[in-house]
């Protein structure tokens, strides 16, 4: 599925539920647009988390809420405050990385 971001006018490939399929197509403007759709206003703290997630995703490390909580960047509680109702799902979506798969 191809999605066009209105403000930046870039076309990117996204999954059925809106996650970027190629994390290299991501940029900060896209992050802001996805965050707007979800209803989150991004701050520097959000970007610290986003950069951490992108770094780990690039290294092919599996991400969990527990892992982000131990990253030293945010506690789990703060992660929930930054990305209410979807700490890992929303942060991953905004970070342009695949949907977290914790379900086995």
């Amino acid at each position, binding site marked *: 599925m191809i999605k066009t971001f209105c403000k930046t006018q870039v076309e990117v490939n996204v999954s059925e539920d809106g996650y970027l399929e190629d994390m290299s197509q991501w940029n900060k403007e896209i992050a802001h647009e996805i965050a707007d759709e979800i209803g989150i206003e991004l701050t520097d703290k959000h970007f610290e988390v986003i950069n951490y997630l992108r770094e780990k995703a690039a290294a092919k490390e*599996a991400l*969990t*809420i*527990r*892992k982000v909580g*131990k990253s030293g960047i945010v506690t*789990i*509680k703060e*992660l*929930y405050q930054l990305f*209410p*109702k*979807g*700490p890992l799902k929303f942060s991953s979506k905004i970070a342009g990385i695949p949907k977290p*798969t*914790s*379900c*086995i």
Partner: protein
Amino acid sequence: MKRLLILGAGTSGTMMANHLVSKLPKNDWKITIVDQYKTHYYQPGFLFLPFDIYTTKQVKKNGKKFIPKKVEYIQKKIELIQPEANKVELEGGEILNYDILIVATGTKIAPAETEGMDGPMWHKNIFDFYTYEGAKALRNKLREWKGGKLVVHITEMPIKCPVAPLEFAFLADSYFKNKGMRDKVDITYVTPLGGAFTKPKATETLHYLLEEKNIKEVTDFSIERVDYENNKIIDYADTEVEYDLLVTVPTNMGDELIEKSGMGDDLNFIPTNKATLQTNDYENIFAIGDATNLPASKAGSVAHFEAEILTENILRYINGEPLKEEFDGHANCFIETGNGKALLIDFNYTHEPVEGSFPFPHVGPLSLLKESRTNHMGKMAFRWIYWNMLIKGIHIPFVSATMSEKGKHFETIEK
């Protein structure tokens, strides 16, 4: 004489000892297995113990009985693995050298990871059923419980046997119906996942079961703490769920031995190649069953399929041949749905549970992803299979280690 050392004599370790004893050249190899506990538990039975369906005697046996005589069995606590030195230290300072190591130390519940969980109300009105002690204490509680809010809860993934908590909720529905007190019990299922089943397609297909049994659902609930004074669980988003009786599956973690030995991830599971079962960091160390970080279910059926492939890979490793990249994450689970019925699901890393028949294409007799009495009989018969075939490493006829796609309706529940 070379030594193959197995750590842990649970389902996986016992199966490996039985598989390898007849396959390793006797003159060159000695097999040793170490476990600190005397008792081997039939862990799937812990689901039935709280409801008085199984007795305590039916779920435990002396572990030594299942270890082949030609295998050296040491009942001691394992203190440390020194992977660089090919040594394992046991309690009392005894050192075992090894040429090949198989780690099968499983997973444990870690209620202390959640604030308030294993406090003063642990095993009073907060229970687990993933340990023998927990399941037995819960049985005693249920026998006299007068009703109220029953909350069945999963703390975080991954957990051993991911469908067990749901089965618990289904069986609880039956149990209270049979006692004539279902109207006095309010059942709520609370999960950190987006749906009741761990696989999205099964969730869609089987959602009716929850509605039919009047089980309420709270999803995406990531617990922060148990407020044991006010009987409620609270998540990071400040959602609260009240309980009178909390049956929880605490965080599951690998053995602390793995952490002490510096070999685990943040949950003490060992990074392992998901197709060969060789650990990522050491070529002469293999891991099997719940101890690994594989993205497969932590379940006996998975361990059983892994054992067949690991046996072959150990022989290949000894002969200096390339390892077979064959394990596909195959899992095969019965799901008790209550009232003498069960479902069967069969899936792997890439295929979600689908409808169809098992193990014979189009014949069955077991049906996949559909409730039936035959499936329930299968689950009940499995206890016999476990003690008499599975852990003894006897191949279960017609059930292959990798998943078969025959007789399964892969298209029927595609969106």
